[in-house]
């Protein structure tokens, strides 16, 4: 049986499938539930300095199995209240990665330090939410900003820093290179693609915020291209995310260069049991292909260097 255990950003993971940020991560019990269902680790909802209710509904539009559009608007209970949710997940034994979002480098550094104090294994910086004014993509779409923010956070915490970058730019790999220069231990790619849905009978956008972020199977090829390019340009691990619904999807990302993976939208269509299924199916697929360890397949689709 092929070994799914990986090390990513220095963190040992029992399998590569992390719960993606934004899905299930508002309450500690839900994080613990994803862990109990077999996730290799769980990433919290992106947490900010103050509580944030998010946008009014509709915040979501689904396209059967091929995708989902959301503009939740970064709802979160704020860093003052969130540590007890992390504590619940940690008591359940979960490997927890804390996601944070902020408006500038000093705020990122303060928040990340407080997140680190909860005992999380790493922090993931949300530099890429496509639908929140003043946050996410708006602060993370230039290499200069990404490098400055990552550098400030790395100076403020002693745990690995993962930069989650946006695909909504001409050169996502350039952002990854900037994050590596700033001292990031890993890159997560990709966040959702900025997108829109319109109800033709009502002559208006469906989501209350207008624009949202597209996730799910539809964006997998985009994510693969980004991971491929990033793998070529940085020497730190890449966490592949975007439309992973099957073991084949997962192995595509790994062969493109991902050392770990995030799963989000698949929970909408399949429920949390997706973690167990992906792990079983990926083991079988690696066995079929003759890989003893998943790590041996990282970057396998790239020409020999």
């Amino acid at each position, binding site marked *: 049986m092929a070994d799914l255990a990986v090390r990513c950003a220095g963190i040992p993971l029992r399998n590569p499938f992390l719960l993606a940020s934004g899905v299930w991560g*508002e309450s500690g019990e*839900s994080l613990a539930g994803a862990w109990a269902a077999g996730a290799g680790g769980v990433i919290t909802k992106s947490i900010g300095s103050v509580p944030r209710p998010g946008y*009014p509904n509709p915040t979501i539009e689904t396209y059967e199995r091929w995708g989902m559009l*959301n503009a939740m608007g970064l709802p*979160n209970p704020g860093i003052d209240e969130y540590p007890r949710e992390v504590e619940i997940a940690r008591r359940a034994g979960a490997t927890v990665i804390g996601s944070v979002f902020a408006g500038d480098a000093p705020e990122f550094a303060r928040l990340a330090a407080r997140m680190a104090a909860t005992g999380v294994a790493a922090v993931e910086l949300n530099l890429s939410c496509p639908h929140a004014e003043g946050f996410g993509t708006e602060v993370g779409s230039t290499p200069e900003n990404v490098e400055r923010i990552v550098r400030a956070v790395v100076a403020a915490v002693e745990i690995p820093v993962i930069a989650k970058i946006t695909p909504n730019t001409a050169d996502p790999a350039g952002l990854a290179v900037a994050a590596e220069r700033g001292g990031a231990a890993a890159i997560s790619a990709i966040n959702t693609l900025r997108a829109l849905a319109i*109800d033709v009978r009502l002559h208006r956008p469906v989501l*209350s915020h207008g624009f949202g972020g597209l996730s799910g199977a539809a964006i997998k090829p985009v994510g693969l291209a980004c991971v491929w390019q990033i793998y070529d340009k940085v020497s730190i691990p890449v966490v592949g995310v975007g439309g992973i619904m099957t073991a084949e999807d997962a192995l595509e990302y790994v062969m493109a260069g991902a050392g770990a993976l995030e799963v989000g939208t698949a*929970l909408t269509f399949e429920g949390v049991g997706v973690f167990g299924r992906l792990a079983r199916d990926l083991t079988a697929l690696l066995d079929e292909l003759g890989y003893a360890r998943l790590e041996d397949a990282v970057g396998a689709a790239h020409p020999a260097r």
Partner: protein
Amino acid sequence: MPWAPRTRPASPKGPGRPSRYIGRPLARYVRTIVRVTERVEETPSTVTLRFPYDPPAAPGQFVMVWIPGDDEIPMSLSYVSGRSKGITVKVMGETTRRVQSIPPGTALGIRGPYGNRFDLSPRRVLVVGGGSGAAVLAPAAEAARLGGTSVVVALGATRAPELLFRDRFRAMGARVEVATDDGSEGTPGFVTGVAERLLADEPFDAVWTCGPEVMMQKVIVAAGRRGVPVYCSTERHMKCALGMCDACALGPYHVCTDGPVFAADRLATVPDFASFHRDSSGRRVPF
């Protein structure tokens, strides 16, 4: 950017059908634009809206109701059978107040139904409804009566005019025992007192309850003493209704996909129940 409400009228051709899918669309994943056909003032604080919506539904399930330009809220179906579905809305906040004033002809976006349903197999059921809880209990009792189940209803409200669906319960052949806070009809006090007396006097195979969680907790305790299983219809702040966003977390469960109906023994280990819910940001708010 927030989008200002548009005044342009929607197509006058009546209910729309989703068109962006190849093959048969799943109501779970698409919104269907419907038009309100009927508005009924059930009590001074409760209004029923009826609309045509084809997807089959079962008692206990809910739909997401989009009021274009406003909000999208979860509502239990108070009328589940056939094509004409219905929701019964009590004023809880600004959105529900606006929903109540919706006139016939207004366009709504509906998706669902979502969630689980009441198990209709018990033969003798005690229904305990407080406030607007009767909205989800009435269709369950109706379906049970059609199957020959005997139904006794303990129905509570602040005052007599607020007793929701009292006549509907009677019309389906259920016995209705009333409690009002001000004593204007039936037993003065809380409905839990009536429920306790009924549980002491008569044998039941199951209790179905919906209302404030503190009320449901008392019902669970009273029924538990007699070994009668209790099923609670619960409510939490809800956004996606698809088990993704975590807004409706209730302990280890999500109300949208694991509920809204929970057997009481599943709730026994949930610290949230009858203790706190979460607001739109995920902060804990005590009841």
